[in-house]
């Protein structure tokens, strides 16, 4: 009934009906691709680590590095300081290697298994070069293995290396060995150590001195196989005075059990180099009852090693049942700049504990943190950030702004900033707000003819504007749509 004589029902009608319509198109990436895959037996032990390394024909330095990590990991325990609640993960109950049975040496994109290619087509990421969006090169990672990298020749002309990390280990072993684990050491934390032992693939980028990468680089991660963990490792090195913009997207099928994703991303920027790293994370979030969904425990860190180097992290996190993620910058070079722009949206039973660390070591280093957290349903959303200014970081500056938006009365937003300033010449600024989408804002938009769903989506996009405008154009459009879809069932 829609009568204004019953305000309760009136609200329900206005808010729920458009929502119900949307449910049909809920998580549209939740399909499974039926392909033959090469899969390791369940469980984790030294033999599995050796198996992975052998499958990839790795040099011995890498195998011993993996083994060191694995031995250390066995002595470590899962961190419990995050504001996250979940049943204990049984690390023996997953496969640590799953790869589509590909022809051993893919020379052209036409040789990719058509089913995998169809998967990417369905996801809106065509792997045929003639259909590509101009100006975006893609590396597609399917379960544990990179299946295609596009626009290689054009990039090679510019001297840019963009390939899977497995390939880089074979072809550019020296560069990989020089940088791997220097930003996130194998001993860094429980998940990063696990990743160091069992990582299967990921992307590798090297931009030579003075080169501005001629196109956006992008990696698209897809988990397909059941009961597998995904552990990618990405390494991006921007040599002196170079520039690269890198995009990362992720989806997974809908499954009732939780799946673990523990990636590591390392960025290195040398003198006057700039890396822009953007993520739209849309792993399967689980259903409305909190069944299934990806556990996303990710370590991302960038080192601004050079003078005036710059690293910016922009993330839109709408997926995953659990997100544990703190993309960070170590500002070593004098006058280096770190930025973190984040939108974290949680709905239903999703939980996110995310933020950043900005470690100021060099003089006149600057960092900016803009975080927008949106919670709906029964979700919990925590911003956790550390700004540390070391004694030698004269005249360093930080600006932090954390805004939270609540939709409904059953969700939570938390802001936990740690500020450690050990230099008297440096200063930090922190602003935080928490607001709700007001009934009056909704009413105003609806009075102009917008449906409740469109109104919420408009208001949320407005709230996120500062971050959305940092994303490359196509990604921004995609992200805005995603925010709308992720909020379904959130008003009422």
């Amino acid at each position, binding site marked *: 009934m829609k009568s204004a004589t019953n*305000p309760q029902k009136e609200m329900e009608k206005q808010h729920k009906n458009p929502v119900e319509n949307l449910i049909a198109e809920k998580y549209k990436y939740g399909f499974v691709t039926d392909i033959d895959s090469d899969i390791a037996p369940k469980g984790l032990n030294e033999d599995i680590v050796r198996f992975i390394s052998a499958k990839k024909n790795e040099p011995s330095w890498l195998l011993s590095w993996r083994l060191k990590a694995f031995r250390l990991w066995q002595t470590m325990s899962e961190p419990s300081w995050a504001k996250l609640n979940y049943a204990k993960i049984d690390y023996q109950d997953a496969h640590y290697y799953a790869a589509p049975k590909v022809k051993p040496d893919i020379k052209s994109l036409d040789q990719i298994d058509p089913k995998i290619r169809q998967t990417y087509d369905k996801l809106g990421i065509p792997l045929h070069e003639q259909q590509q969006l101009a100006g975006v090169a893609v590396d597609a990672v399917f379960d544990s293995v990179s299946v295609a990298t596009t626009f290689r020749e054009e990039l090679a002309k510019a001297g840019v290396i963009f390939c899977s990390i497995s390939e880089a280990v074979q072809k550019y072993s020296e560069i990989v060995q020089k940088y791997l684990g220097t930003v996130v050491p194998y001993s860094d934390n429980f998940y990063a150590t696990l990743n160091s032992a069992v990582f299967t693939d990921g992307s590798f980028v090297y931009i030579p001195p003075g080169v501005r990468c001629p196109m956006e680089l992008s990696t698209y991660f897809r988990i397909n196989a059941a009961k597998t963990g995904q552990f990618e490792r990405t390494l991006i090195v921007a040599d002196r005075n170079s520039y690269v913009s890198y995009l990362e997207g992720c989806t997974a099928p809908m499954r009732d059990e939780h799946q673990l994703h523990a990636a590591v991303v390392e960025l290195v920027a040398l003198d006057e180099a700039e890396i822009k790293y953007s993520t739209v994370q849309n792993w399967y979030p689980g259903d409305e009852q909190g069944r299934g969904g990806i556990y996303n425990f990710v370590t991302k860190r960038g080192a601004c090693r050079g003078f005036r180097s710059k690293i910016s992290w922009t993330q839109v996190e709408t997926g995953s049942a659990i997100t544990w993620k703190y993309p960070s910058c170590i500002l070593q070079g004098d006058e280096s700049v770190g930025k973190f722009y984040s939108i974290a949206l949680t709905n239903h039973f999703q939980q996110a504990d995310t933020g950043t660390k900005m470690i100021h070591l060099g003089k006149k280093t600057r960092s900016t943190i803009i975080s927008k957290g949106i919670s709906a349903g029964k979700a919990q959303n925590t911003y956790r950030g550390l700004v540390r200014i070391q004694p030698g970081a004269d005249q360093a500056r930080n600006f932090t702004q954390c805004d939270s938006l609540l939709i409904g009365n059953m969700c939570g937003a938390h802001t936990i900033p740690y500020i450690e300033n050990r230099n008297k010449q440096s200063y930090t600024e922190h602003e935080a707000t928490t607001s709700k989408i007001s009934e009056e804002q909704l009413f*105003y938009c609806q009075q102009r003819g917008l449906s409740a769903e469109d109104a919420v989506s408009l208001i949320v996009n407005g709230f996120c504007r500062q971050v959305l405008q940092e994303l490359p154009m196509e990604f921004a459009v995609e992200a805005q749509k995603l925010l709308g879809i992720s909020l379904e069932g959130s008003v009422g």
Partner: protein
Amino acid sequence: MTNIVLDIQNLHVMRDGKKILDGLNLSITEGSLDAIMGPNGSGKSTLSYVIAGHPNYQVTQGTISYLGQNLLNMSVDERARAGIFLGFQYPIEIPGVSISHFLRLIYNSRSRQLGEKEVDSFTFLKKLKELRLQLGISEDMMSRSLNAGFSGGEKKKLEMLQMVLLRPTIAILDEADSGLDIDALKIVASTINQQRQQSKSIVLITHYKRLLTYTVPDKIHIMSKGKIVKTGNQDLALQLEEKGYDKVIKAPIAGSV
């Protein structure tokens, strides 16, 4: 006989357990300009909210029909798309939502309803510029956030701009004249007159006869304690200015219904 656009019969409304409208009757005919005047707290804004379908008001008795349909069965956005516009006494701020984006969104949503095709952004910007100049709204306002940090007068002009874009069948303007400078007041009056020429109905809630000298209403209604207690012509506004509500409401005068 003239067509009745909006017909309100014996309307009783509560909010948070308090009775605010108490047996209100009001009929609005096609193309007419009706002014509603009344003391602070008499329920004028409440009436406009109830017509628009605000979820926090409870209609406990009475009917509202709009072009023969039961309005109370329609949601807020259905009413809006069907041609009911409310100019807010206090327009709501929405941070981060750019005005031009918002205006195009609502314009196209109304166009779809009217069976017209949506316009591309170039055509829309041309149209917007024309209206903006008519209403004396500066270009840089268009890229700012909706109503955020606007002066009272700027907000009211933006409400008028939205009204024109939405081409409503009936517009209820709640104190469209408050906070306006003389020039802006004339612009608002001429915008209202244009709407009348297109046979749109306007209900003007106001405290002052000032606006009514630039756009002369067909009827003036006086509201008190949740109902319409007197209806008359332009004279009524003059008498109010001279004598105040108390005397006018009590005195039986010529021209009243």
